[in-house]
């Protein structure tokens, strides 16, 4: 069962790293005159959403949370990654799209790795 827990934590760590990578890419979108979206509301939106993704994933990976809260935050993280990928698509930020799709897969992997609480008590 430790394997499942480690797998989930690894997946959440990956989401954190991808969230931070996305944050960097979103910063580029927001600040670089060569991005085509500098200073735009859309770039600000993906900056906020990637920051939230990174922070939430880190929380899930490193802090012991109640089961319902863990489930809620993980669900929101998956939605965040998917929505950010869509937003990045319309910003024509293809690397950010790819990063968020990977984060989405990692988030889904964490979600389907089984019940965290249940696994830890067996």
């Amino acid at each position, binding site marked *: 069962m430790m394997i499942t827990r480690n797998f989930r934590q690894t997946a959440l760590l990956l989401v954190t790293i991808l969230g931070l990578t996305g944050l960097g890419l979103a910063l580029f979108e927001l600040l670089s005159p060569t991005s085509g*979206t500098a200073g735009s509301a859309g770039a600000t939106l993906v900056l906020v959403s990637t920051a939230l993704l990174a922070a939430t994933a880190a929380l899930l990976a490193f802090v012991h949370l109640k089961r319902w809260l863990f489930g809620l935050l993980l669900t929101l993280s998956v939605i965040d990654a998917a929505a950010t990928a869509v937003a990045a698509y*319309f*910003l024509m930020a293809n690397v950010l799209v790819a990063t968020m799709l990977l984060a989405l897969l990692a988030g889904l992997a964490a979600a389907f790795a089984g019940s965290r609480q249940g696994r830890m008590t067996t």
Partner: protein
Amino acid sequence: MTYMARTLAAFLLLAASGAGAQPTDWTTFNGNLAAQKYSPVSSFTPETVQRLERVWSVETGDAADGSDELPQTVWSATPIYANETLYLGTPFYRILALDPATGEERWSYEPETVLEALTQPALKNRGVAYWQSGSQGVCEKRVYIGTMNATLHAVDADTGQPCADFGEGGVLDVNQWNTVNDNFPFSLLQPPTVVGDTLLLGWAGKDWAYAVAPPGNLMAIDARTGGLKWDLSFIPEDLIPQTGTANIWTSMAADPRLGLVYVPVSSPSPNYWGGNRTDPIPLATSVTAVDIETGEVRWSQQLIRHDIWDYDTPSAPTLVDLEKNGETIPALVQTTKQGQIFVLNRETGEPVYPIEYRPVPASDAKGEKAAPTQPFSSALAPTNDPGKLPDVSRLADVTGWGQCSDDVERFRYEGLFTPPSEQGTFLWPGTAGANNWGGGAVDPRTGILYLNSSRIVQVIKLIPRDTYAQVAGESGAEQGYYAQEGAPYGIQLYNWTNWANLPCWAPPYGTFSAYDLRTGDRLYEVPFGMTQQWGFYGPESWGSPTLGGPVVTAGGVIFIGASMDARVRALDARTGTEVWSDLVEAPSVAIPAVYTHEGRDYVVFVAGGNPILKPQIGDQVVAYALGN
């Protein structure tokens, strides 16, 4: 192969490659006096443009976003390549002379003029003009730039030093000729058209602001001295006390062989109500041929009668000789804001394709008397079908809780030329036009016209004077309110959108078209560019509204910026398909220039932005050439 045959083959190969790199200039706003926007450069083809690379980029520093004491800048200057130098005017009215191969500055000229938005909502510039006498010496080659406050500056093309014999020390006060209804200065935002030793000069004003305004005129000015050769007014003498403008704010074309300049004349003032000018003003909203030597009108074709839509004739007509029914016709092609394309014989003004006068809706505004008929170019399909209001956008209608559908019931629209009204009228195409000052490009070898068009629907409401102040409140032009002082109505003019600023009409929002002028057939009309809202790009099938024009090259490639998404593009002229693009600093709302310098072919774009497209400004000049 014998020695002789090898030598002959090598000679032919050399000749062929030499033909591909023949020296070309770009000495006027539209490339040549015929305003064809055609370059004989043949090295740019749909295949080779994949190898285009950015060879230099320059930021002039002459840009303002309007957040401090300077007004916002709008930069639409076509670079001029002449005298083996690239010349640019900036929205701070400086002249820059750049090395065409490196972008390095050779000299700059500072006009020391006021930087205030005296007649326009922004500091605008569409570039410089070039003249050479053919002799050697100081100021035998000159560059001219106009300013917002009506001064025309002449400097030596080699050094940038003022030409002392022009005006007063190189500066001509053009406002000295602004003596009637002079409630604003003659803003010189468009460079003069140079024919021989004559500068042909129009000006910009604000015909939306006042009922009575300076009457529009064309001035012929001596290129050496700045002396006025002649002056032609477009408003009948007896109507001058009650109206004004019908000015030329855009570029012109000329045929030196015929001795004619072809001028696109704008609408009279005020723009959206004409009760003060119900008598005919035949030269208003027209294309008019004027004798360059005498200033006499040779012929004129009015393209809108009693214009109350601000459908100024917006661009230089393109001159091209057309082979039609075994005859060579000296033709003139005029694109318009209302999306119609008129083809005339440029010697006589007679239509090459028929013009029909069709009944149009009557006005219900106080004191107004709309023209009962308007001219329609019946053989060439208009761009974007201006006769039918676009469908309502389902996305905008749903997210706007049905507002867009309600608007269709609420506002007046009975086809093209539906008059402005108190209830609100759809202005379709919008005041920025289906086609604007960029005009079209024509390949003189094939007689094919290439044209970018916008699809913007606006709403115009006439607001009775006694309630205008209350309705407009403190808000002004930013909310679309314009007083039209001296008229019984102020107006509100705005884009037809929902609360989220989504367009209420279905895409596309801009297209690119090609017409065979020999047959009148439209060869294609495809969405062009991409819209951008809050940074998000719309699908390619939506296209983009555009400002600025295309250039066609002998290699079968169209170069164009113009779209909202700040891309500069190369299109395959055969299909309108995009074959190359690059992101620049802001929308490139200028006509690009194509030239050959020291054996290498270049295309140069200016990226300056325009708030009509989106609030993004730039000060970038970017040059591209083929890499290995």
